[in-house]
């Protein structure tokens, strides 16, 4: 149970303000999820310089990462450690698996980093240095854990494929079976969190050639429960709600940006909101914005 915010910029001149705007949005949904938080940011030159493989990690200290990965640049952000290197993503991931076997990968890809931690989301945003982040797209989540532990690993976003990111408000009702099915097909899980099952399911279908819209339609068919999902990739920003659509969602759109949030107050902080087209996503309709 949670608060969701997301911002997809169309106007490049706003990119220097991405982190500042995302921080302000996140601060408006703290009440919905006071126990932990996470963000995914696309295009920040410090966290994810162009052309370099980026992997976001939990369970290691920056010092351990720097020691184990001498060729990588290490960036510390609260519980998260981001490393980037001049190599293919798969190669960096393989190196990490060997050199840092206890690390949990919470995001990988190019031009993309995931930061997670536990505690008050406003304080976490400070620890992340979120206000100083730049880029073209960002997603944030504040969490009120329902049935799984309050840990950095349990925080959203769940990023389980290259540049992919899923945040969820609600709770699934048949995720245990779907987790078993995916495990039987070789998919590995990092947590007992229901939302991770959603992320793995989407990644699994993207991996098999579905586009994001198709993957989310399949999710609607397979998953019981209540959900508002914000799902992003390096070039897409998508929103979908379950058939009953009890969990809140608002989308606002201008020529300069598309934004999504659980509550209006998180959108109110955006420049030009007074002229935005604001609407509620319809149930089981997949909305995708492409870059």
């Amino acid at each position, binding site marked *: 149970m949670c608060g969701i915010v997301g911002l997809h910029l169309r106007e490049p001149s706003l990119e220097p303000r991405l982190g500042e705007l995302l921080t302000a949005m996140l601060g*408006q949904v703290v009440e919905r999820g006071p126990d932990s938080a996470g963000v995914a940011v696309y295009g920040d030159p410090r966290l994810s310089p162009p052309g370099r493989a980026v992997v976001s990690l939990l369970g290691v200290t920056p010092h351990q990462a720097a020691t184990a990965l001498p060729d990588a640049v290490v960036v510390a952000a609260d519980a998260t450690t981001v490393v980037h290197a001049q190599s293919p993503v798969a190669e960096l991931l393989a190196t990490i698996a060997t050199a840092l076997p206890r690390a949990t990968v919470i995001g990988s890809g190019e031009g993309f980093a995931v930061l997670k931690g536990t505690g008050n989301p406003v304080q976490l945003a400070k620890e992340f240095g979120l206000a100083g982040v730049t880029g073209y797209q960002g997603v944030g989540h504040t969490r009120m854990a329902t049935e799984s532990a309050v840990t950095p690993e349990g925080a959203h976003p769940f990023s389980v494929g290259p540049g992919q990111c899923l945040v969820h408000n609600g709770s699934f009702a048949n995720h245990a079976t779907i987790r078993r099915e995916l495990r039987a097909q070789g998919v590995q899980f990092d947590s007992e969190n229901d939302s991770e099952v959603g992320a793995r399911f989407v990644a699994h279908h993207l991996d098999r050639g579905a586009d994001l819209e198709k993957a989310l339609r399949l999710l609607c068919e397979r998953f019981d429960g209540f959900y508002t999902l914000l799902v992003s990739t390096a070039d897409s920003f998508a929103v979908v709600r379950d058939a*009953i*659509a*009890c969990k*809140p969602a*608002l989308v606002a759109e201008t020529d300069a940006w598309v934004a999504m949030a659980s*509550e*209006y*107050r*998180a*959108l*109110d902080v955006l420049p030009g909101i007074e002229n935005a087209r*604001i*609407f*509620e996503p*319809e*149930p089981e309709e997949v909305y995708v914005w492409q870059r």
Partner: protein
Amino acid sequence: MAALTEVDLGASSVRDLNQALHAPATESAASWRVLNPRGAHSVACGLKDEVTVDVEGHVGYYCAGMNQRATVTVHGNAGVGVAENMMSGAVRVRGDASQSAGATAHGGLLVIEGNAAARCGISMKGVDIVVGGNVGHMSAFMGQAGRLVVCGDAGDALGDSLYEARLYVKGKVKSLGADCVEKEMRDEHRVELAELLKAAEFDQDPADFRRYGSARRLYHFKVDNSTAY
């Protein structure tokens, strides 16, 4: 003319606003203007006197919740459950309303000039709701009494499990819920609808609307209805 009291939610809390609004109305405090709501929740809820409140901007959940006698106008959009469980008075949303607008409301008039999302008028118990635009799915679910007027279209499962609420829709109805059926528009319905449209200050012709109500087939547990429960 009573004096106008302004409250800026950029400077005051919702708590301070509501506490002030809950004080007995006086000549000098019968008219209120609320600035910078910025999506705040529970704005002007629990009012019980004949005061007028104009909210200048978008509000969050439960604006004008459980309203009694007051007139509240939101010059913007309203979040979940605007005027939920209203007893009397009038609430007007100049923009759109989120889900569960007018939920379980017993009386008064709720006007939404834009669209209302899912579950508009859910479990309504006597309120009159007039929506200028469309309503979302499951609107008037279990509606017990009152009238819901929709000048645009209605989403899926309109009037599911309806009791005695009366529904009027001008546009298309995507689907009717269990036990909700179209009913004949008779003169008394055109008269009642004209009054509602007038009260809402909407310039619409009652002749363009269709009426929906309960078929009353689910009023008793019977074997023939088992698939509908």
